[in-house]
């Protein structure tokens, strides 16, 4: 397995085409993300922005018909989802899944241990894990009671999203993909989630934020904004582009799609 130096790109998506059940969703996406950067992917519903994040994380139902994804100098598409996670890819789900009967504590510890073992480190003792968990719970203002319960079961929408950020903080990924984490959140929850993300940011990791609205970008400032329309990047820019979209919507960009 190759390790990349800090100068080469962390993630390089080239000419990516992908389909689901025979319908092409991504029609040639190219994108480079370096360590320390925050990228926002915006776009109207059905543009393929969630698909991109899910493909990077390894969701199985997509077929890659063309193109490559290079991650830390490796062919990411060769890896199963758990290998990607252990190598530092993290997807915060748009709809976090409920795991009835699976205790959050057990789930989180199993994840942390799986990643540690992959790195050649030892599993954490109960005490060590509790200490780690306590320190990260503060990031998202998560009640201790929630980690004793079944994963996401009976959680409110906001609690589920905060639980995703708690996992993000615990697993400490190199590449974090946030799939519409802001949708359905009230302003307080959005602030908590954003602060959690900001506390996880370092010069060594990178973020890809998938969002429909500019709102979350008031809290997490992106270095780059890409607008996805009909499976292609219609325009890339800096955070000013997001404000422009907020004002004008997405329609005017349809003419800009490269052919």
């Amino acid at each position, binding site marked *: 397995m190759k390790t990349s130096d800090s100068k080469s790109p962390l993630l390089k998506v080239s000419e990516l085409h992908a389909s689901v059940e025979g319908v092409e969703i991504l029609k040639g996406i190219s994108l480079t993300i370096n360590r320390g950067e925050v990228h926002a992917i915006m776009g109207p519903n059905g543009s393929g922005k969630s698909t991109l994040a899910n493909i990077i994380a390894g969701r*199985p139902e997509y077929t890659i018909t063309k193109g490559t994804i290079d991650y830390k100098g490796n062919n990411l598409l060769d890896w199963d989802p758990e290998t990607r*996670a*252990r190598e530092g890819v993290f997807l915060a789900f748009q709809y976090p*899944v409920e*795991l009835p*009967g*699976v205790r959050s504590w057990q789930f989180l510890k199993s994840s942390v241990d799986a990643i540690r073992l992959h790195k050649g480190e030892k599993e954490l003792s109960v005490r060590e894990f509790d200490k780690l968990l306590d320190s990260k719970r503060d990031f998202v203002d998560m009640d201790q009671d929630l980690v004793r319960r*079944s994963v996401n079961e009976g959680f409110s929408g906001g609690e589920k999203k905060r639980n995703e950020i708690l996992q993000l903080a615990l697993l400490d990924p190199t590449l974090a993909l946030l799939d519409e984490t802001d949708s359905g959140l009230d302003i307080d929850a959005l602030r908590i989630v954003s602060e959690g993300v900001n506390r996880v940011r370092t010069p060594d990791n990178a973020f890809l934020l998938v969002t429909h609205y500019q709102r979350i970008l008031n809290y997490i400032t992106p270095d780059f904004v890409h607008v996805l329309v009909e499976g292609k990047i219609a325009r890339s820019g800096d955070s000013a582009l997001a404000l422009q979209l907020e004002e004008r919507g997405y329609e005017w960009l349809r003419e800009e799609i490269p052919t």
Partner: protein
Amino acid sequence: MTQTPVGYSTYELDFERLKKDSNKWVESLRTEAWLSFKNLGFPTARKGNEPWKYTNVKTIAETPVILGSHPVPNVSLNEISEIAPWSNDWTNIVFVNGRFMDDLSNIDGTEAQVSTLNMAFSENSKDIEEALGKTAKWKEDAFIALNTAFIQDGVYIKVPQNIKVEKPINVLFLTMPKDEPEVSYPRILIDCQANSQLTVYESYIGMTDGKYFTNSVSEITLREGSLLEHVRIMYESEESFHIGTSRVSQASSSKFNSKVFERRVGLGRFDLLTNLEGPQSSCDLNGLYFTSGQQHVDNYINIDHKEPHATSRLYYKGILDGKSRAVFGGTVYVQPGAIKTDSRQEDKNLVLSPDAEIDSKPALFIWADDVVCGHGATAGNIDQDTVFYMRSRGLDLETASRLLIFGFASEIIEKIDDGHLRDYIESLFLESLPSYKFEF
């Protein structure tokens, strides 16, 4: 209605060989029960025979089995504690191949009156004559008749009025299979007098691989205000046959809390019939079955509300793998006049393999007004979204499957208060999980 079994003659021979009992009452009971069994025959899955619709006992009828004879194989305490629930803090009563093992049991030191059926018979106990066969009606049920025809060893537990028995009574029916398949007829008689409290664990354990038949009957009488906590464990051999019955009779304000765990058997069936015969009586029946390979498990449950203001809860969960099959037949009857009945029943299944089959039939018959009753059944599998979520957190398929299956089972396992027993059940259900893996 009857089926002429190939192996039937071996039962006949056994019955003739069975040593005549010095207790005349027992002898005539056996003879009557034997005639009743011959008359009833093994049940068939013929049309209209609802209780046996999904479970065909033809293979049992066609397998020659003989009554376990001496010498009873040696089993050490070490071997027992390896495979069966065991704690020195419990009152342990051990049977091997149907025979009571005095040296492995400690029936003293409990507030309950405990004796073996053999002891009670030789003392010509009038108590037993009055109680035996009262709730387990051998004239109506072939397997109860068969068990009664061969009644010999077993355990009789009586809790005096107002007594709370502190230590759980752990009754183990262990089978060491022999080359020639044997049959054993475990029998338990429990009588909780008014306002008494008792905890009983009743386990059926196959010590090694091999073919045999367990035909068990438990008769339970709960008098006014009494409480019985009951756990029943089926962990027989992969090739075994197990047909068990519990018949419970509940007087007013009595409570019956039952937890059934079925982890391994070849062809298994457990009938749990409880009669709520007094107002304010209640039963809480929980169960967990996990079938794999070619196993077949049938849980047949009847709750009969005969009096007003009684409460019943029936909650079973099943995990099915391989080519196994499970049957859940839960029926709640609310008799005329049983107003203010409060009843819920539910059966949830997790189907892990496309070749596994669950037949879940919850039913409700209400002949009274002013009742609250509900029932439901579900069968589902683990969806790809769930598995992807877990894998995206670094968990491999094996770990993900294990966490999910155990999560499903833990809801029932957690209902056990006794930490020692809970650990045992957890290991029973967990040990087979690590090798399991979903295919996607």
